[in-house]
């Protein structure tokens, strides 16, 4: 029992560290990638001087994120005079916490056998094994959508409680947009559920470890390429980033629903947005890119076609799986930033029309075709 507690404490620490690191580093990645995409150099002036020396560490401008965080922590926490104090204070946390909680059901690695990893503790751990995931729930995907719904409340509450017209307009936009795209997101994922026959994210990832058509990795994107595109689009809209950043459209609404927030409260909204980039990357990786699976890598080592087997120690396999997951998530984050710096913003009627008249029918059609195909050929696992 106490062993479980230790292992899960380690998992939770890893997940929290991972998300907060991603949230911080992504601000830097966003700046630098945007700069490189447009032939610029990007932020490179913030430095940390080693005390008592003239050695200035610039590190490609990595410290700009640190400077931003410090600035937000030290700024005046300005509050509007006419506002609902409780809801106003609660809203940033309601926007921030669910984003972190979604990661609880995302598997970030294969099976961990602590006894095999640390031989000194083999006696204590016995032959227990843990899937590298904070909470292995049968209803994993439902949890993801449930927490997505809570994030809407955060945005709505922020807009309503700050008693500002711009905030309220932003909140209304955020609410209708997020609910519309949540529906599309759910429908696209339904296709995957039909194929894999489970809501458990770990089981979904395990079913993606094989090989499809003899050479392709059996990833979700191979079976559901259409759903993958729709899911990613809906997820970006759900995160309210360009081209779907209508709730925050600076030219129209100042900053949308968090106009009246300053200092770290506003920082929480921004941080939540950046962490959600990583969450979307993690979800996309889990559902469509095979999660922690490398092609041909099993828990025992590589098994190449033609029965070439390369046995690897458990520690190497664990690290490889963790790294694979991280790299996939990072590539997806980078892709989202690429989209954000390439496309112009929609008009608001276009956003909703795009959701209801374009993506919704396509998602339904995708689901219908998938259902017919599964009925005709049988599920993947069968």
């Amino acid at each position, binding site marked *: 029992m106490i062993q479980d507690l230790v292992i899960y404490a380690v998992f939770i620490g890893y997940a929290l560290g991972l998300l907060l690191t991603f949230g911080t580093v992504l601000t830097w990645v966003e700046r630098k990638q945007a*700069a490189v*995409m447009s*032939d610029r150099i990007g932020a490179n002036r913030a430095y940390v001087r080693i005390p008592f020396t003239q050695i200035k560490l610039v590190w490609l401008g990595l410290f700009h994120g640190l400077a931003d965080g410090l600035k937000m922590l030290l700024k005046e926490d300005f509050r509007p005079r006419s506002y609902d104090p409780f809801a106003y204070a609660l809203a940033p946390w309601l926007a921030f916490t669910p984003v972190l909680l979604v990661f609880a059901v995302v598997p970030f690695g294969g099976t961990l056998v602590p006894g095999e990893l640390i031989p000194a503790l083999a006696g204590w751990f016995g032959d227990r094994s843990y899937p590298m995931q904070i909470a292995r729930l049968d209803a994993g995907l439902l949890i993801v959508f449930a927490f997505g719904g809570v994030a809407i409340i955060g945005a709505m509450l922020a807009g309503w409680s700050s008693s500002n017209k711009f905030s309220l307009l932003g909140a209304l936009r955020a609410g209708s947009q997020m609910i519309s795209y949540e529906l599309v997101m759910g429908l696209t994922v339904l296709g995957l559920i039909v194929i894999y026959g489970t809501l458990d994210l770990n089981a979904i990832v395990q079913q993606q470890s094989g090989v499809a058509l003899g050479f392709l990795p059996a990833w979700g994107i191979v079976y559901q390429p259409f759903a993958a595109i729709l899911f990613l689009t809906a997820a970006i809209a759900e995160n309210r980033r360009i081209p779907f950043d209508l709730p925050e459209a600076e030219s129209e609404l100042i900053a949308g629903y968090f106009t009246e927030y300053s200092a770290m409260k506003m920082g929480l909204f921004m941080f939540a947005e950046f962490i959600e980039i990583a969450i979307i990357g993690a979800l996309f990786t889990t559902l469509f890119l095979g999660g922690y699976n490398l092609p041909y890598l099993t828990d025992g080592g590589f098994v190449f076609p033609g029965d070439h087997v390369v046995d690897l120690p458990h520690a190497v396999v664990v690290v490889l799986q963790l790294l694979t997951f991280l790299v996939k998530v990072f590539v997806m984050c980078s892709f989202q930033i690429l989209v954000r710096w390439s496309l112009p913003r929609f008009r608001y009627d276009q956003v909703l029309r795009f959701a209801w008249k374009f993506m919704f029918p396509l998602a339904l059609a995708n689901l219908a075709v998938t259902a017919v195909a599964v009925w005709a050929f049988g599920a993947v696992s069968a």
Partner: protein
Amino acid sequence: MTRKPYKRKAYWNNPTMTWWERAYLFEIVRGLSITGGVFLHNMWRWISGRKGALTTYYPEETRADYAAHNRGKHILTQRPDGRPQCIACNLCATVCPALCIEIEAAFDPDDPAHPKSPARFEIDYSRCVFCGLCVEACPEDAIRMLKEVPALPAYGRGHMWLTKDELLNWNPHRDVAKPYPPRGGRAPGGPA
């Protein structure tokens, strides 16, 4: 009151989209491949140790493509012994439309050919208009302008003065008008 139904104004260059553009996704993919291609191209340049940006790191790096006759930073030319060629006649300070040159003359009885020289020669770059009149007014070819720009960024107007020491820093390999670098004598800006 009856209202006329709204009629959309037709523009002469009314944009029309083909069905391919209307399908949206393909054009999005095209746009993303353009930006992604630029990203990969620049990133490859950075990774392989070259510069992948058009930007110049401004104060540390000056652009190489200034015109050859750009009027930028002032310099004072030197005699073969390293003293300034300037005779502190104040013509440049007089002609200067921005009134940004300040000269304080010194007297040297040991050099009867050039008894006057500048003890202080300072230019206020927060006011200089880079017209080049000082260069034209100088009877001694003592002040010239290089194509490089002075180190302008500063935290206050008080830090934007160029002093005699800095103006005497010019040390080219070769000059058509006189032997450069100056031979022998005192160091530039040294004691008289």
